[in-house]
């Protein structure tokens, strides 16, 4: 195991930030740590890096216990923080060179690595720019370059795509997959489930400082009862016939729930069962006019919703 965390407890006064938190990350994985804001993702990362003291538990990285003075372990870790952590007074090149230089003392080798990192994040044209002159997306890329330039074996990315435009976000995600292909183990925290689904080989979902589920995306989705989600957009205004039809859909043996909202009928089908044909048959039989019909497989948000009763992402921020 590259990272092993056993029964980690971290308290801030009366608040329990990590409540017997357990985690195992194997070599070569892109491991996603998914959870809503305040679920304890960043605290877990800080404890993992020995940047925070914890009340109880054990953390080992590369098979050795992690302590503040474990410099041999730190040498192989790259950290990309949630907030951009670069010096405003240094240029793009100087920033990457500075952080790489904390790990790599050989000047010639460092130069090569810095050039490689600049190319990797696509900042060649901006190497002489000061951070204040960079856009949000470019700044995030610089932040990543500073964390990966020394080619660490373990890369920890703490919500690196917050407030990044979709183009830069895709570039960052592609870069993370590339780093993984080059041999790095990646721990990726986010509250964007699409990102985690897109790049992570395995993931853990956190809530209130605990891991509530872990496994591959398909394993997690198979843990819940919800199968496909059916959405039907009606053409006419709702009337008693429509209400009656929704009740009939609800009564179907493969349907978990059905609801009517304005001119839209939503239905959740059971796992591994197909209900679309039965639903459309009922609509046709009752002469309900409908326009579009969608049928979606469950998402991680559905997993989280079913396990905790709340949405994974802050609905306001979506």
């Amino acid at each position, binding site marked *: 195991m590259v990272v092993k965390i056993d029964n980690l407890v971290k308290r*801030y006064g009366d608040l329990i930030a990590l409540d017997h938190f357990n985690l195992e990350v194997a070599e070569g994985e892109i491991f996603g740590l998914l959870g809503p804001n305040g679920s304890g993702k960043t605290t877990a990362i*800080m404890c993992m*890096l020995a*940047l*925070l*003291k914890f009340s109880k538990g054990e953390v080992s990285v590369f098979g050795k216990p992690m302590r*503040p*003075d474990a*410099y*041999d372990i*730190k*040498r192989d*870790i790259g*950290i990309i*923080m949630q*907030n*951009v*952590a*670069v*010096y*405003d*007074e*240094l240029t793009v090149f*100087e920033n990457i060179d*500075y*952080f790489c*230089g*904390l*790990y790599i003392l050989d000047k010639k080798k460092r130069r090569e690595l810095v050039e490689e990192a600049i190319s990797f994040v696509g900042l060649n044209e901006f190497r002489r720019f000061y951070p204040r002159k960079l856009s949000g997306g470019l700044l995030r890329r610089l932040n990543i370059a*500073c*964390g990966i330039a020394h080619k660490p074996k373990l890369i920890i990315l703490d919500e690196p795509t917050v407030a990044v435009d979709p183009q830069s976000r895709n570039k960052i995600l592609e870069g993370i997959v590339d780093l993984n292909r080059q041999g790095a183990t990646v721990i990726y925290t986010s509250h964007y489930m699409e990102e985690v689904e897109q790049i992570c080989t395995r993931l853990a979902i956190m809530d209130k400082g605990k891991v509530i589920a872990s496994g591959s995306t398909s394993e997690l989705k198979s843990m819940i009862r919800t199968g496909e989600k059916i959405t039907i957009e009606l053409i006419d205004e709702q009337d008693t016939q429509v209400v009656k039809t929704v009740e009939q859909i609800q009564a179907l043996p493969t349907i978990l729930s059905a609801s009517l909202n304005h001119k839209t009928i939503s239905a959740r089908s059971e796992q591994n069962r197909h209900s679309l044909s039965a639903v459309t048959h009922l609509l046709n039989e009752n002469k309900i006019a409908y326009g579009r019909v969608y049928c979606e497989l469950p998402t991680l948000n559905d997993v989280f919703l079913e396990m905790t009763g709340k949405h994974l992402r802050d609905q306001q921020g979506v």
Partner: protein
Amino acid sequence: MQVFKACLKIIKRNLPSMMIYLSVFLVFVILVTLWNPQSETEDFTTSRPRMTIINDDTGHPLSEGLKNYLYTYAKPVELDGSGDQILDALFFRQIVYVLRIPNGFGNALANGDTHPKLIRTTLPDSYQGAYSDQLINRYLTTTARFLNASPDMELSTVVRQVNQVLEQSADVSLRSEATGNGFSSMIYFYIFLAYSLTAVMILGVSSLMLAFQNKDIRRRNFSSPVQITQYNFQLILGNLIFAVVTCLILCLVSLFFYRRFADFPRWLLLVLNTFVFIITIMGLSFLLSQFIRSRGMQQAVANVVSLGTCFISGVFVPQELLGENVLAVASFTPTYWYINAIRLIQHTESVSRSFMNRYAVSLLIQLSFAVAFLVVALVVSKQKRQSEKQ
């Protein structure tokens, strides 16, 4: 030495704002040097006040003697004696002094009145008027002494003897070249340096600490394999090099400006005092940096602290002119002791044991401030670090 190199780059990036303070300082000291504000006298030239004497006691040897004596040292200006003309001449500064010798003056003096009545009109607060009064008093006092000592002497002989005595003069030469204009200007340079050094050090050190104390940058640095002792050592070294180089450059600038007048041993004492002061201010800046959160706050603190300490410590206003209470408060700032040491150097002719004792006390007090600032700053810093880790 990545941290150390980053320190130098960050200071380099902040040089423009620091250069503003240094440029203002250099322009100021150059102007001060050109205008020569110092009060020490290098040479002396007698002044000849423009004077009108109206003698109503003509013919008396003592009255005539006074008139002749005064015209030896004053520029005579003849007026007809009417009131309006005299007042106009005074108003337009054609004359500065009018003396009317009343009738009977000579007799009164000859009869033992040491200060017989004279009517004097002069410009208010005029130094030439005071000088003229001094000349008259000298004449009257000397004449009275002669008359008292030799009551039977002929009045014309008395006048001749008095003139002989008053004509005598003595040569005065300044003992030390070091009291000259150049060294005084150098002293002014080092006094005003306190302001620029304080502002520049607070700006420089706080720029470094602002960059390195950023919470996310600290986390990134502490996640790296650089040992915390090495990290702190490099950070302190960066601050120290900045302080020493600033001190050296400014001391060499002083030598460049005043090289013709430099009294080398005393210049070295000034340099040592400046070095101790800059270390102390570095400690103060380090302490202030623990509380500085933004660039705006940094500028405000640099201005308030540098101007405030310099005003009360005698940088802009001489300590002699400051009130006792102000000086009592100022003695709790290192700037006061820095200025104190400079004044000691300024007023000493030779490096004596008693001078060295007093000079050393000033330096030791400054160093005590440095230690106190550093200890408090380290305690605050450690507490912040620990609370961050909790």
